[in-house]
């Protein structure tokens, strides 16, 4: 048989990493992406990428990185892959450096490192405050090189609809839809790798990009893939509230010395710069003296919520706190944080060099995702997953600057593993189920286009976002989660009556969106029900009614499987691999 064909879906860091490894190993790759891959959401990552290179004489080690990651994730992550990732991280940084990523430098010409949340070491390499952009571009350039050499075929502007599974449930390719011609087509492959990112769109407004709908992972979930730890959603403590989205204000702002505070007097009317030091409440520094402003994100986010909603100290009574950089000199700020300060100034119209920024937590990252084994393969043979769309590396809470390394590492694993898997794959019988899958997807399209009713998909989406943000983010109550699930069930019902105002078959963006919406709704149930069943507080999952971590019952991976029944997905629990670091209490406020 001819060379093995691998399909990679998603052109962010994870997808491109996988593509590079496969092309380098001599495989052929079809790369699918909704947007030109250079516009993928990885471009939004700001602060940096972690690796224990120990270039600051602090004695940092990969073991310490591993421990910080596991501890930061509240022991929910399986330790074997996390350990391997932390050990691989320094070489990944070196590789990126060789690819030309313009990392900031020390005077000696070595990589500079900054501090980030959840660690006491300078472990984060960075390229200004646009590290994700620089990393994505470096990988994009390598892929463009392979593309020019004919080793990679890009299908930009194609949306993944489903996997093609043969009679034995083995992946034989994908069905994708051309977002211009709306053509639905089967693409055969010997293995597929999903690298389709996070699910921010479930929450309406988040720091995620528009394409981060989780539609692809939801589609394979509905085809039988397991979805793990869906309830773990990271809400980033510092984002800029906006009309259309929440814009991230990187943790690196605090890594470079930014301080979070509110006036001690509720509703203080003085101009911010005239409030004396003694009357500013640096609550993170007071509550967490050891880590200060660099506590992990879940901790900082809950602290901000407490200050705003319990202590009533939000700025002008609004849900906002100050993130203050004004004490740092102008040049240092421009050199290390220029990109994000520019974003703030452009979108808010205030110069953060001279006036503290007003920020508030916003939905940011999906710790959960498709269940995969240590080879990055889902329970569907031949369907691999890497990057934010899978669940493996961050447990109950991701540490800042670990996502970039997990995406690249995951892609580097998934690529060669998929190739190895494909080598031993027996030839498909007939078309492997391609025609049937195309027919099924076309049927869905036909129905959506011919629907009669009064529902607008964008309005349903807005309601979904409001519900999810209200009940399934920072603070969760079982009553609220119940209400959220009922709301989603209602939305699923109303979805049946969507009437598209645009029924054309050319670049029909609302049609594509309506398709994604169905998948978002199904996934939203999984997230919500997972949260409902987990009666404890762990990492980003916080239930005031169950304020403690409960290792006995819940040191477990949540594994959801799609049933199609009204009751929603079936959820099982799987033991967590804790063979290297025994779980210990997670206390960032402890003085030790």
């Amino acid at each position, binding site marked *: 048989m001819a060379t093995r064909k691998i399909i990679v879906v998603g052109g962010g860091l994870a997808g491109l990493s996988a593509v590079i*490894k496969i092309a*380098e190993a001599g495989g052929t790759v079809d790369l699918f992406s909704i*947007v*030109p891959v*250079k*516009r993928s*959401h990885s*471009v*939004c990552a700001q602060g940096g990428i972690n690796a224990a290179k120990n270039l600051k004489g602090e004695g940092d080690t990969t073991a310490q990185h591993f421990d910080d990651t596991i501890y930061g994730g509240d022991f929910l992550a399986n330790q074997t892959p996390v350990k391997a990732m932390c050990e691989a991280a320094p*070489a990944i940084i*070196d*590789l990126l*450096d*060789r*690819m*030309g990523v*313009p990392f900031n*430098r*020390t005077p*000696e*010409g*070595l*990589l500079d490192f900054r501090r980030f949340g959840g660690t006491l070491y300078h472990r984060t390499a960075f*390229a*200004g405050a*646009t590290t994700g*952009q*620089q990393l994505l*571009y*470096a990988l994009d*350039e*390598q892929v*463009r*090189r392979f593309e*020019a050499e004919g080793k990679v075929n890009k299908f930009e502007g194609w949306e993944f609809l489903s996997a093609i599974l043969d009679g034995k449930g083995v992946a034989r390719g994908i069905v994708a839809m051309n977002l211009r011609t709306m053509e639905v087509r089967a693409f055969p492959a010997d293995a597929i790798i999903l690298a389709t990112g996070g699910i921010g769109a479930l929450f309406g407004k988040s720091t995620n*990009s*528009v394409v981060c709908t989780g539609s692809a992972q939801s589609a394979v979930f509905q085809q039988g893939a397991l979805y793990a730890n869906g309830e773990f959603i990271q809400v980033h403590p510092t984002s800029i509230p*906006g*009309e*259309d*989205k929440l*814009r*991230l204000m990187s943790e690196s702002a605090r890594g470079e010395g930014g301080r979070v505070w509110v006036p001690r007097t509720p509703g203080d009317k003085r101009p911010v710069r005239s409030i004396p030091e003694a009357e500013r409440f640096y609550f993170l520094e007071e509550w967490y003296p050891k880590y200060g402003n660099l506590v992990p994100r879940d901790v900082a986010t809950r602290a901000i919520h407490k200050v705003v909603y319990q202590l009533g100290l939000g700025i002008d009574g609004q849900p906002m706190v100050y993130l203050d950089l004004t004490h740092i000199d102008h040049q240092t700020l421009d050199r290390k944080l220029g*990109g994000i300060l520019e*974003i703030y100034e*452009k*979108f*808010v119209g205030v110069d953060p060099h001279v006036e503290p920024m007003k920020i508030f937590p916003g939905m940011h990252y999906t710790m959960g995702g498709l269940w995969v084994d240590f080879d990055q393969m889902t329970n569907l043979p031949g369907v691999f997953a890497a990057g934010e769309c899978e669940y493996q590396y961050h447990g109950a809470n991701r540490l800042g600057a670990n996502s970039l390394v997990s995406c690249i590492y995951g892609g*580097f694993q998934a690529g060669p593993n998929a190739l190895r898997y494909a080598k031993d794959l027996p030839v498909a019988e007939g078309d492997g189920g391609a025609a049937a899958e195309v027919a099924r997807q076309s049927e869905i399209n036909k129905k959506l286009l011919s629907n009669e009713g009064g529902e*607008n998909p*964008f*309005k349903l989406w*807005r309601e979904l976002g409001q519900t999810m943000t209200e009940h399934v983010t920072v603070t969760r109550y079982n009553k609220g989660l119940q209400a959220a699930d009922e709301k989603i069930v209602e939305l699923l019902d109303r979805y049946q009556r969507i009437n598209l*105002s*645009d029924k*054309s078959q*050319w*670049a029909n*963006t*609302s049609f594509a969106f309506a398709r994604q919406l169905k998948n978002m709704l199904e996934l939203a149930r999984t997230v919500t029900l997972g949260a409902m069943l987990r009666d404890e507080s762990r990492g980003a999952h916080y239930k005031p009614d169950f304020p403690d971590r409960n290792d006995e019952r819940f040191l477990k991976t949540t594994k959801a499987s799609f049933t199609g029944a009204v009751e929603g997905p079936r959820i099982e629990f799987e033991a967590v691999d804790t063979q290297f670091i025994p779980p210990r209490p997670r206390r960032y406020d402890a003085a030790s």
Partner: protein
Amino acid sequence: MAERTVVFEIKRQASPDAPSVWERFELPWRPGMNVISAMMEIAGNPVTCEGHCTTPVAYDSNCLEEICGSCAMRINGKARMACSSLVDNLEQPIRVEPLSKFPLVRDLQVDRSVLFENLKKVKAWVPIDGTYDLGSGPRLTPQEQEANYPLSNCISCTCCMEVCPQFNVETGFVGAATIAQVKLFNNHPTGKVFKEERLRALSGDGGIQECGYAQNCVQACPKQLPLTSAISDVGREVVVQKVKDWLKS
């Protein structure tokens, strides 16, 4: 008091061969509103000022924080990113049109793949031996990093090409973005292995010589890339390369 509103006029075109029409929308004003949030609002209720039911506007967007480069369009006549176009800073009615120099797909969507083709033509990458562990990369001074970083911030929005009087079907000009990338990769200690090849590529038809130095690119660039300086630097190097090639031939 009447509710404050915002008026948009959007150029619509259902497909490349369909006629274009202007549609007018009136939306409730909200603080911090930008052109994208207005478009989202329209999608939820696609009805024009005249009460005519229409379709949601097709447009490209992704990150909404001016880093992905998707949402470039002409707003009040000027090419810019829709996400960072705050309604409060724009004269009303806000007229929104697609970029004019690229093949139209639908409404505000255009096909900008020519830029990515151009990047291939100039080998805009660092040719590493492989992704296996070969130790750390070349040392660079902070000054070198600070010179390269701004060039590496190009978001491929194509605003520089849209506003360039020389970028058109007649000239087939490559545009400022690609020239800046040539400078970036020629500056890199490993990337410069292709330096001569890139310079020769840029002396091909549609190359750097087509630049008319109107300097619109540097004015329009949302990421403030030093585009004109890149054109000057690369322009000199292309000439030197061509002279060398001629002397050696």
